């Protein structure tokens, strides 16, 4: 299998690292080589973050370049827009339409960037309202698992394998709600793809 590159991006603290971990474990369980590259430290204090997961028969570099990403999962609207040039022309874009305004916008120093959703829609983005779906399962923190549910539809891994990895990785009392979050993400993605 040739190498597939997935980029997860968002705001520090949104759970991109945990989501990437789930994906990497699912790919490893399928017997593939996998690399997961993340950045800790200063950017975690509410800064712009991205995590790259690459899997296939043999993966060399853990990082990627513009025009080389197969699947971009935007945990936040502005951060998805910031990295849209990384996605291959035929690549897939999954975007949580919620926006978290950066500090220069909150303070009024810079204008609010309007119209991002329309541009991303033109680029073929499927919108998954992960925060709302996560609230629906009673666990706002599982928005990242909702997005992995959506991502899972376009990847060659068995649904059961995802469920096993999620169950082994999240705290015991949140297994049920996280599995449900995963399911809602899958369903929302299927509906989004039908609507395209």
């Amino acid at each position, binding site marked *: 299998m040739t190498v597939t590159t997935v980029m997860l991006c968002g705001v520090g603290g949104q759970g991109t690292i945990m989501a990437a971990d789930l994906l990497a474990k699912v790919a490893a369980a399928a017997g593939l080589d996998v*690399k997961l590259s993340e950045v800790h*430290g200063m950017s975690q204090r*509410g800064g712009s973050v991205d995590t790259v997961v690459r899997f296939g028969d043999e993966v060399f*570099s*853990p990082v990627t370049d513009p*025009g080389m990403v197969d699947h971009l999962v935007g945990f936040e609207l502005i951060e998805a827009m910031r990295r849209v040039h990384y996605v291959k022309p035929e690549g897939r874009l999954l975007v949580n339409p919620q926006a978290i305004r950066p*500090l220069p916008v909150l*303070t009024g120093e810079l204008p609010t*960037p309007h119209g991002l959703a329309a541009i991303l829609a033109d680029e073929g983005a499927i919108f998954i309202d992960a925060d709302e779906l996560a609230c629906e399962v009673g666990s706002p923190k599982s928005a990242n698992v909702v997005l992995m549910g959506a991502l899972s539809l376009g990847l060659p891994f068995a649904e059961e394998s995802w469920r096993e990895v999620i169950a082994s990785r999240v705290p015991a009392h949140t297994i049920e709600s996280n599995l449900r979050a995963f399911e809602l993400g899958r369903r929302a993605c299927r509906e989004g793809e039908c609507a395209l």
Partner: protein
Amino acid sequence: MGRTLLSGNEAVARGAWEAGAVVGVGYPGTPSTETLQRFARHPGVYAEWAPNEKVALEVAAGVSLAGRRSLVAMKHVGLNVAADPLFTLAYTGVRGGLVILVADDPGMHSSQNEQDSHNYAAFARVPILDPSDSQEALEFTREAYEISENYDVPVLIRSTVRVSHTKSLVEEGPLPHLEPQPAYVTEPSKWVMMPAMAKLRRIDLDRRMVELRQFAEETALNRIEMRDTSVGIVCAGACYLHVREALPDASVFKLGMPFPLPAAGLAKFASSVDKLYVIEEADDFLTRSVRSLGITVETMPMPTVGELSPGAIRLAFGCSAPVTREADFSLPPRPPLMCPGCPHRPVFYSLRKARAVVTGDIGCYTLGALKPLAAMDSCVDMGASIGMAHGVELAGGTAERPVVAVIGDSTFAHSGITSLMNTVYNGGGGTIAILDNRITAMTGHQGNPMNGITLQERRSHEVDLVGLVKALGVNRLQVVDPHDFAACERVFAEETATDELSVIIFRAPCALLLKEKDDPYAVDEDACTKCGVCIKLGCPAISKDEHTSRAVIDTAICVGCGQCVQVCRFDAIVHTGPACDFKGADLS
């Protein structure tokens, strides 16, 4: 045995444990921090945070003297602090294997500079190993202990962000077999480095380097991969992975040990390819080293700063860039910021109001340099704030503006105490603010001597910070709750008005340590006069409404700290009741 997904840092920790290291010491620093945290969780090991990297390496030197193996972990700038013992430990050599993980940060994701630690290996004359991925991180670390003991020398493992923070699959090795601790032998000619003995060890170090150069020619750490012979590439670490991705047909000399170099092996490789290139990040250490062997290295238009990627290498070798999407849009940057409820915020707000010249330091509070607080004038290295404030004063001060040094609790323990002693000793004045948030916050909440929390949760002792500052000879000392704006402003006004040296300890726990949130606040729209004062706090929970210009509080992230209530002069910030669910901003 199955394969496990481990980061490079975790793999180094596992490798050290498999090699029988029984003690781990370090100081937290991105991207090295998880190494020691992971090592500490292995059965049968002792691990501790030291106040700084110099102390950490000296503790490990003692472990080595007593005949046991140890692991030291730090970030690249930490090795500057630990350089003093490192250079002389190259002379003494080791008894128990001594391995130092140094994690570089090309691209400066979370650092104040990008230095290539290879230079230290050559400067101090110690071998350095560069793993490319987690499997190598584990195996090279195990091997490093053998090299350390066989060649009587400390060994550096050099990683970068893309090794330390990349997870890849690892086949773990067997559990360690610990030999009993050897009987202690007194050996002053090896360990007491006064001139008479050091001169002999200096000669012996050169003898050991000759042996290590021979080892470099033979070791499987270095590897030649012959493919198309028109292009040959010398590389190490994560760069090897980028090269394999970018130029799959090129022949490669993969250096697992970039110092000392295998001169004969490299010469042979160079003669078997048409053109030889060296690919490395953020420095030209390897290029210079290979050239110094008399080997011709082609010049390549590569970036000389920051990280490399396969794309950057492809571009340099004339491959066309991939097609990218055209979508172009001007986006606001997203700088990191202080959390809602952060106790540092009122301190910087008050410093700005006091028009202070602020010499800053390394930690979360460095974010006080960013808008809208924008109240920091310098940030150089751990502990620099206090010495620099003294220096500004010696230069004649800053016309009409008070000078205040700002330093965190962990940074004060790391390198601030000696600086404060210097100011006291030399009769300096000025104001020093110690922001004691009870934790080493930026690197992810590690314990330190100021809070008495240790890495393996052993019983400990909390430094009496007030007593320490007094013992250094500081007479003017106050402890202030930073959440109290009036107190912050009053104390800065009082203390900057005197010529006498004064220390203010701002003590309140990091907002992330508080498990319970208070009820959030909201803005009373009728009372809000749009004055914008609360916006100037730079709290991510407060924003200026685009249409009405009134302040709005995001109740989902407000922690109810009440800082904004204190700055509002119109009583427009009020309690509303429990938090609602997150609702993102509407950017439609």
